C-alpha cells in the first residue's frame, strides 16, 4: 500500500518536467506532492527547474539581442548566395 504511494526520484523529476508540457492526472499530482514533501532533493530540483526555465528564456532573448544580424552586408551576402544557387 505504502509502496504505491512512493515515487522514485527519477520518476518524480520526470513528473516535474511532464507538468510543464501536459497537465498531470490526479494520481500523479498527489504522488508528486507527497514525494516533494518528504524529499528535499526533489523539492530543490522542482524549484531549480523553474529557475532554469527562466534562464533559458532569458538566454534565448539574449541570443536574439546580441546575435541578431543588423548588418546589411550580411544580408546582401545571403541574397547573392541564394541568387547564385537559383541560377545553377
Amino acid at each position, binding site marked *: 500500500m505504502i509502496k504505491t504511494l512512493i515515487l522514485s526520484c527519477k520518476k518524480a523529476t520526470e513528473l516535474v518536467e511532464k507538468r510543464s508540457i501536459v497537465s498531470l492526472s490526479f494520481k500523479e499530482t498527489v504522488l508528486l506532492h507527497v514525494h516533494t514533501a518528504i524529499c528535499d532533493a*526533489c523539492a530543490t530540483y522542482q524549484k531549480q527547474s523553474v529557475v532554469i526555465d527562466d534562464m533559458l528564456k532569458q538566454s534565448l532573448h539574449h541570443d536574439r539581442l546580441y546575435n541578431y*544580424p543588423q548588418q546589411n552586408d550580411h544580408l546582401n551576402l545571403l541574397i547573392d548566395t*541564394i541568387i547564385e544557387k*537559383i541560377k545553377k
Partner: protein
Amino acid sequence: MVSLAHEKILENWVKKYTGDLFTWAFHKTSNRQTAEDLVQETFLVAAEKIEHFRNESQPKTWLFGILKNKIADHYKTAVKNFSLNPETEDFTNSFFEGDGHWKKDFMPHEWNSDEEKLFDNNEFVVVFHMCMKKLPPQWFACMTMKYLEEKEPKYVCQELGFSPTNYWQIIHRAKLQLRHCLELHWFYE
C-alpha cells in the same frame, strides 16, 4: 530548369523577401546558420515550384508557407534522430541509482545565489551558453522549441508529430544535463 522569366521573378523575390524570411527563421531557430540554410532551401523549393505559383496569391505568403514547412521539417528531423538514439536512456540513468534515487554526486542542493540577478553577470551568461552548446543538437532543438514557441506545448508536440511523452522525456534529460553543467562550472565551482 528555371525559365528566364521565372528566374527574373525569383531574383526579385530574393531581394525583396530574404530579410523578412530570415528574421522569421532566426526567431524560430535562434541559430544564424540554421536560419540561413532554411531561407536558402525555401527559395530552392520556390524555384522548383514556381510554375505552380498562382498570381492571385501573394508571393510573400507563398514563400512563408514554404519556410514554415521547412522549419517544421527541421525540428522533426532533430526529434527523429533523437528517439533513435539509445544512449539517452543510459544518460538519464547515470544520474540515478538502480532504484531510481539520486546518486550522491548528482543530488540537487541549494544553489545559494541570487538567481534573478544571474543574467546581469556576463561571466554567468558565458557559462550558461557554454552549457547550452554542450547539449546534443537534438536536445537543443527541443529546448529551444519549447521556449520560443508561443503556442501551447501540446500543439508543438502535435506539429512535430510525436507524443507528449517523448517530448517531456527529452526535456527531462536535457535539463538534467544542463543543471549538472551549471553546477560544475558555476554553482559548486
